């Protein structure tokens, strides 16, 4: 049932998968830059939706290459949940709140971009020394995955409002997902589903928090720091 390598009967050749995953990785990094550079919340949401779509495509490619049925299921769930449902929810929340549509960065966006570059470079540097983890089919998935994860956290750290922090969380989540999918060629289905459920739950809790805090005390999550003891 699990991956049995790139056999002769596979519909797609190993080199081709390799190239496709690398291309998708480059596109993922590009969407990540879009998220970091986005000046408005809408743009960041669209970028993260695109990113999730790319992840779903990568899952489909890997599924075709390895013949792993689980990967098809995961790709499908990713497409529905992360590329369609969660961005719509975010979009709906932004419309519901109706104010502060622009991203409020803690440090200037240019500086955040510079930090993101540092992270990407370091990820490649790191994974170069982790040679044994790479597998034939993976290509450059590992450094891209690490870079996505860390940059997602960077977005969470450098944005004031809860909404953009949610976008960062999803991007970071995508990075973890991509790494897991490409490096292990599909984790057990139950784990992947568990991870997706986690994200849904986090989105639910954060949405409720944002809306409730907004409607009861007319403040953003970021203002809660005044509550410290």
């Amino acid at each position: 049932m699990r991956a049995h390598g790139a056999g002769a009967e596979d519909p797609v050749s190993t080199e081709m998968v390799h190239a496709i995953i690398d291309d998708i990785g480059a596109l993922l990094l590009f969407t990540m830059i879009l998220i970091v550079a986005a000046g408005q919340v809408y743009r960041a949401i669209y970028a993260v939706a695109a990113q999730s779509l790319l992840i779903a495509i990568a899952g489909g490619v890997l599924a075709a290459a390895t013949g792993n049925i689980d990967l098809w299921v995961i790709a499908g769930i990713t497409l529905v949940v992360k590329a369609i449902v969660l961005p719509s929810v975010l979009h709906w929340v932004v419309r519901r709140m109706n104010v502060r549509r622009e991203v409020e960065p803690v440090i200037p966006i240019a500086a955040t971009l510079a930090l993101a570059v540092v992270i990407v470079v370091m990820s490649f540097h790191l994974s170069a020394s982790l040679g044994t983890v790479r597998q034939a089919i993976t290509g450059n998935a590992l450094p891209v995955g690490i870079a996505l994860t860390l940059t997602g956290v960077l977005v969470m750290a450098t944005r004031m409002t809860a909404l953009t922090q949610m976008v960062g969380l999803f991007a970071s989540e995508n990075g973890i997902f991509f790494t897991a999918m490409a490096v292990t060629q599909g984790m057990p289905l139950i784990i992947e589903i568990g991870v997706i459920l986690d994200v849904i739950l986090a989105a639910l809790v954060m949405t409720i928090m944002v809306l409730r805090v907004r409607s009861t005390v007319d403040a953003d999550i970021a203002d809660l720091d005044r509550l410290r003891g």
Partner: protein
Amino acid sequence: MSSPPDPAILLTGTILMASCYGAGALTLVLARWSGRLAIAAGHVAALAGAVAGLGVSLGVLLGDQGRTLTLPLPVLFPFARLSLSMDGLSAYFLLVISLVAIAAALYGPAYLRAHSPDAGRARQAAQVLALNVFLGCMSFLCCAGDALTFLLCWEGMTLASYVLVVSDDRDGENARAGHLYMVMAHGGTALLFIAFFALTERAGAFDFAALRAAAGGLDATTRTALFFLALGGFATKAGVVPLHVWLPRAHPAAPSHVSALMSGVMLKVAIYGILRFAFDLLAPVTGPLPPSWGWTVLVLGTTSAVVGVLYALQQHDLKRLLAFHSVENVGIILIGVGLAMVLCRREAAGVALATLALTAALLHTLNHAAFKGLLFLGAGSVLCRTHVRNMEELGGLARRMPWTTGLFLLGAVAISALPPLNGFVSEWLTFQALLGGAGHFHGPAGLAIVLSAAMLALTGGLAAACFAKAFGVTFFGRPRTSHAEHATEAPASMIAGMVWLGALCVVLGVAPGYAVRLLDAPTAALLDGPGASAVVSIRGPLVLSAELALTGTGATAISMTVLTALLIALAALAWALRRGSSGVARREAPTWTCGMSPTERFDYTATAFAKPLRLVFAALYRPRREVTRETAGTPYVASRIHYYGEVVDVAETQVYHRVQRGITLLSRIIRLRSTGRIHGYIGFVLGALFVALLLFGVGR
């Protein structure tokens, strides 16, 4: 000796003991209908369990020597097989636990009814549950055959005693005492976890046989490090100075029969742990134990004995005074243990001396359990009739509570190491071991042992002074408050519990040779030498002797039975002489008090009694006192004088308060630095992750 009992009977007894304690714990459900019923049923179950434990331990001790009774337990965890294994040492400590538990179970119900008649049912249920869990965990801890059972029982014992400490009164002091107890106990438990898991990791299994085998392959440094970790853990529980600060707060806070169990028994469980680790689990395969072990224990024991009794002298809270005496007595036990560790596994003379020292320590374990239990129960009787613990507010109880007075006096004589009671026997044996050890070693080591003997002598004298104060101020004179004036004798079941322990004190004092026979199995197993009776009661069970085969040292011997007979004869003679010479008419008259009518304020108070020693040891006590005079118009007429005096615990102020200040400062700094901004925290995590990846990720 009779034929050894069948192992099957002993195993049945063990299961019976477990089920009694278990049933006792479950009687808490009865509290839904009647708290009184729950308490009575729970204590009856505890009594049955203790009697079963007594039978099992006697069966093992008097049965085949060197036989180990094992009982596999049902599998609870997939990774470890739990088992009980009872050898001589386990059985001896089970005996100690069961003897005091019998007294506590007899005493408990009436005490709880009299002390807190308006207790809610929830509290009564909690007390029944905790008491049985406490007793069961202590009993099975001593019989544990693997590390996991040991640690589970250890933790159960701590938690159950915590519940009992905080359950007695609903005031802040109990809660604070319980909190301190919890923190200290878990600090100690953490050390034990490290020591045990370091061994189990090497062994790949949890049972003691595997741990023993794994410890055989340790290098000397690791072995010593593990021993000191375990010693730290056990010493915290045993209340060894300077880890004793929780003890004088937590022990008095519990109900009195639980105080008796905590002081008399729970501390001994820690002694059991030290013995088990030093002589059994961690001992090198061949050759003597590392010298640093024994000397450390000896020094700790000597310090605890002296410091414990010095602080006890300045306490005016009856139960707290007794708790400090527990620190002292644990010190005396550890002197014997340390000496045995220094001397064991050497040539024959050394082994004989080590046997003598270990016999003294183990006998003192039993003796201390008996007399400290008795004293705590006596203090509990006073407390439940007067609701006062401060002895300055008591006085004159001798006429009002004659039984309690007599039994408390018995305990006081025993703890002051006066013949013919049991405290004298074990301290005499400790002295013999110390003096023999001083003759055995020459040079500085011998001198150190002599110094330890001198400190032990000082301890004995100070303990006698302390109990002269405690007994005199509490029971003699006139009642100082109305609480003491209206006291009545305690109920019969409480007296019964005390009589049981008092009888034990007398029997162990008058015929100690029979108790020494019980020590054959543990001493022979731990020291690979002759058993205790071969060294101590070689001339028959009625004579104690220290036959040490040392050059230039004659054997010393004492017969407690003859000594008792002599004392009784002397007392009878004195009484007869007094009767005979009373030809002159006796006249009774009030005490002459310079023409004033005598009041209770004329009596010697505890503070005044302890004043000379407070001055002598001022460097240790750092006494503080404030006297304020309220004058009525003219400075020559004082209408009122307030006196406030206090001594501090040096360990508490010098060590613990500093640690506390450090922690407070640190947390204040952390609080200043924490902004409460989420993105700041996330950024911090990201940065830390980044640095960690750079440091450890690259170059592998």
